[in-house]
């Protein structure tokens, strides 16, 4: 057999691969991995959406946009109230920590120490979500 004939012969030999006894198990394993990866990604996206939504609501409330009392429904009002209370609670609990590290009086442009704290927290959450998404893709 010449080299010209032998090359395709070897390619055909490589193309013929014996079927493995556990091929159904192997496929099931991959399907399970895909399912868990999809679940993890859905969870990460949901978390990201929730975080983004909360930040957006909080920002719209704190930017003193007049939504008009007639347009604001009771659930939205109560949600806004809850977020404001949570913000105040967080501010009260974080204030001593910020005082201790000397960040309470820190001013960056028009933003105070508390604003910087929230921005930092949001950045950390974003990094954590990005990490989780990357991990889910690798899995």
């Amino acid at each position, binding site marked *: 057999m010449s080299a010209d004939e032998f090359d395709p012969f070897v390619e055909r030999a490589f193309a013929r691969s*014996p079927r493995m006894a556990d091929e159904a198990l192997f496929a099931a394993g991959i399907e399970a991995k895909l399912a868990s990866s999809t679940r993890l990604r859905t969870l990460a996206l949901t978390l990201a959406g929730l975080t983004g939504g909360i930040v957006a609501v909080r920002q719209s409330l704190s930017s003193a946009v007049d939504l008009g009392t007639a347009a604001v429904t009771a659930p939205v009002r109560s949600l806004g109230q809850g977020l404001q209370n949570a913000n105040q609670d967080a501010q009260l609990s974080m204030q001593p920590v910020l005082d201790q590290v000397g960040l309470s009086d820190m001013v960056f442009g028009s933003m105070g120490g508390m604003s910087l704290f929230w921005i930092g927290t949001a950045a950390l959450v974003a990094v954590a979500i990005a990490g989780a998404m990357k991990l889910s893709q690798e899995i």
Partner: protein
Amino acid sequence: MTKALIDLHDVELAALAAAGGRREFGELVRRHGSAVRGLLRRMGAQPSEADDVAQDAFLQAFEKCAEFRGEGTFASWVKRIAARLYLKRKARNARYVAEVETEETAPLVDTPGLVDLDEALKALSETERLCVSLCHGAGLSHPEIAAALKLPLGTVKSHVKRGLDKLRVRLQPEPASYGRTSHVG
């Protein structure tokens, strides 16, 4: 009426998988899983390592399914992904680098008649086996192999040639060897 998965062509299944169809992709894995795992074993991977790499390759293929246009076969496409993943893993371990200069060859068995490819590949050195499998099993070109293995193109070509020469001896014994045995006595 929708067709059963088994009736669908690979390209149709890949299109459905690209839209997130896990069951459709599972069918592709069932069809081609053995071929991909077999190729990795032929490249020199241990069975468990071959399965790990094949699994990673299929998971990566699922992510990239939209890129599969059906120009070649789905099996060849996944084989290329698997081969590259295996090379990356090997490069991390840097085992083949030390092997390049050595010329360790399993002794040829003086058995007339055809032997199967898996058996014949054992006669090749690790690098020859890798180069031949990448070229004829995964369909990579010589320059692609050279880039993947970080070897000079000429070295890759000579590894492939030497590997094929050895395979030729194993897979197609010289007619003379038959003649020798038949003339004895």
